């Protein structure tokens, strides 16, 4: 799962001379490209083209409305920082979890792996219902806090920014753990031994050996969690509603309530550009790290 979003395989770039094998195998990509071109790119392109359609000819008015409005700039900023926070926490929590998961063996690993996988199969609606039940004033979280004496009275968790972030981490964490897990799994224990015999302390070993080697997994997991968090629509709607507006919610309003395709499409384009640049940046990052790491 390394090089995930960056697409082209990181491990072994195809030898360029193979590119021109004088047969028709390039056609293998054709069905998928045609399909995605017609079913995905074309309809989306037509919709997004409306971002520059004005009453009379082409206009950048839609972008002016999105980027020129402090409120919408705030929404974009909020969406990005939310996705960033979710990604960062998922990484910080997911990395050690994936590490421990990869280091267990046998039946235990299969069991734990299934436990990471299971939540993915439960509808997001059900999960948010479960989360709100946990977060209630009389919920488990408050019960724990009060009984351990950390707080005197119940704290409000539901529909706070904190519960939004925690909830989104809950929903998207498996998308971080699984790519990390597959990369850490391939990590050869001998590297660690070698580092240890060279006198490196555990922290140095981690920073100089483990971290660079698992970087493809970090970038893959982070870029996918970031992409799906920033585009998420149902999840933040259920976790906090309109008190924390995201780009997706603005698009929903523009397309459904206002039928203002210029606004909605402009917002969608802004988001696509941001997401794509992050993906390209991460793919670039992986590549340069791999070249530096000599792998």
């Amino acid at each position, binding site marked *: 799962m*390394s090089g*995930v*979003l*960056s*697409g*082209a*395989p990181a491990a072994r770039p*195809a030898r360029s001379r193979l590119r021109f094998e004088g047969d028709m195998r*390039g056609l*293998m*990509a054709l*069905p998928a*490209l045609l*399909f995605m071109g017609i*079913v*995905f790119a074309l*309809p*989306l392109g037509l*919709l997004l083209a409306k971002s520059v359609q004005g009453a009379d000819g082409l206009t950048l008015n839609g972008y002016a409305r999105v980027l020129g409005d402090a409120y919408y700039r705030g929404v974009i900023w909020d969406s990005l920082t939310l996705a960033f926070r979710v990604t960062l926490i998922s990484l910080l929590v997911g990395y*050690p*979890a994936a590490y421990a*998961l990869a280091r267990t063996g046998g039946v235990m690993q*299969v069991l734990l792996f*299934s*436990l*990471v*996988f*299971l*939540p*993915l*199969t*439960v*509808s*997001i*609606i*059900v*999960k948010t219902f*479960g*989360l709100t*039940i*946990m977060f209630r004033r009389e*919920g488990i979280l408050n019960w724990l806090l009060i009984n351990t004496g950390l707080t005197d009275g119940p704290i409000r968790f539901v529909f706070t920014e904190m519960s939004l972030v925690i909830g989104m981490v809950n929903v998207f*964490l498996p998308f971080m753990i*699984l790519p990390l897990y*597959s990369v850490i*799994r391939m990590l050869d224990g001998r590297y660690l031994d070698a580092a240890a015999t060279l006198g490196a302390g*555990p*922290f140095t070993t*981690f920073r100089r050996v483990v971290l660079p080697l698992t970087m493809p997994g970090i970038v893959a997991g982070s870029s996918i969690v970031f*992409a799906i968090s*920033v585009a998420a*629509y*149902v999840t933040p709607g259920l976790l906090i509603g309109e008190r924390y507006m995201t*780009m997706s919610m603005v698009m929903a309003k523009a*397309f*459904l309530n206002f039928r203002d395709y210029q606004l909605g499409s402009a917002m*969608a384009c802004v*988001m*696509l550009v941001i997401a*794509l640049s992050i993906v390209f940046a991460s793919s670039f990052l992986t590549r340069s790290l791999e070249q530096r790491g000599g792998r």
Partner: protein
Amino acid sequence: MATAARILSAIILALVLIFLIMPIAIVIPISFSPSTIFSFPPTGFSLRWYENIRNADGILRALWLSTQIAGLSTAISLLLGTLCAIAIVRGFIPGGRLVATFMTSPLMIPGLVLGIAMLQAAREIGLRDGYAALLLAHVVVTMPFIMRTVLASLALFDFAMVDAARMLGCSYPAALWRVLVPNILPGFVSGALFAFIVSFDNYPVSIFLVDVRTKTLPIQLLNQLEMSPDPTLAAVATIMVVLTILALLVCDRLVGLKRMAAV
């Protein structure tokens, strides 16, 4: 210190698993609650919400439809995506990295935008069949997940094996089938599981494409919830969890979860 780190990461893993499972685990007892509200902990035991499912028209049909759409769209993505991924990895086409990004880009589009775009395009070309429209859209939704796992698996695959099989008398397609497919099967399975789940749980794209005869499970569930906001939903969720565990067991039988976990 190293041991400390190991213990710490094991503790974090345990906490993470509790955290991931908790919201689901809470919903399960509620499904057996006699109360009409989502009260936790439940105050008794009853199967009334399960009986309610049997009465709730359409949930089973929706479950079957979602299974079909998820299964078929995953299969189509798998076929098209794998062929495309091979062409990318082998450099049969120029601009492989760009093509790969294109194939994974539906991930970055909010489902709602995709849904509206596809609804309009479908009507534009006269496609009115809900089943077909859903299927096409779900192939788009599942494609990124297939692409990412298959590309990663192919990166670790030695294509000389395909050449070797050809030299031993297999045509190119036969060589792919007999050598490439068995060797990246774990990647296929985990990619397919991801894709299946993403399709199965898709709400924002489907909502624009479902019609009265073809309603997928998430749509039907939300519908059900709006028509009777009671723990029937919890009962359905519990059944889904049980079905998932069964599916995981089947996967274990088919390929072995251990191999699956390998990618």
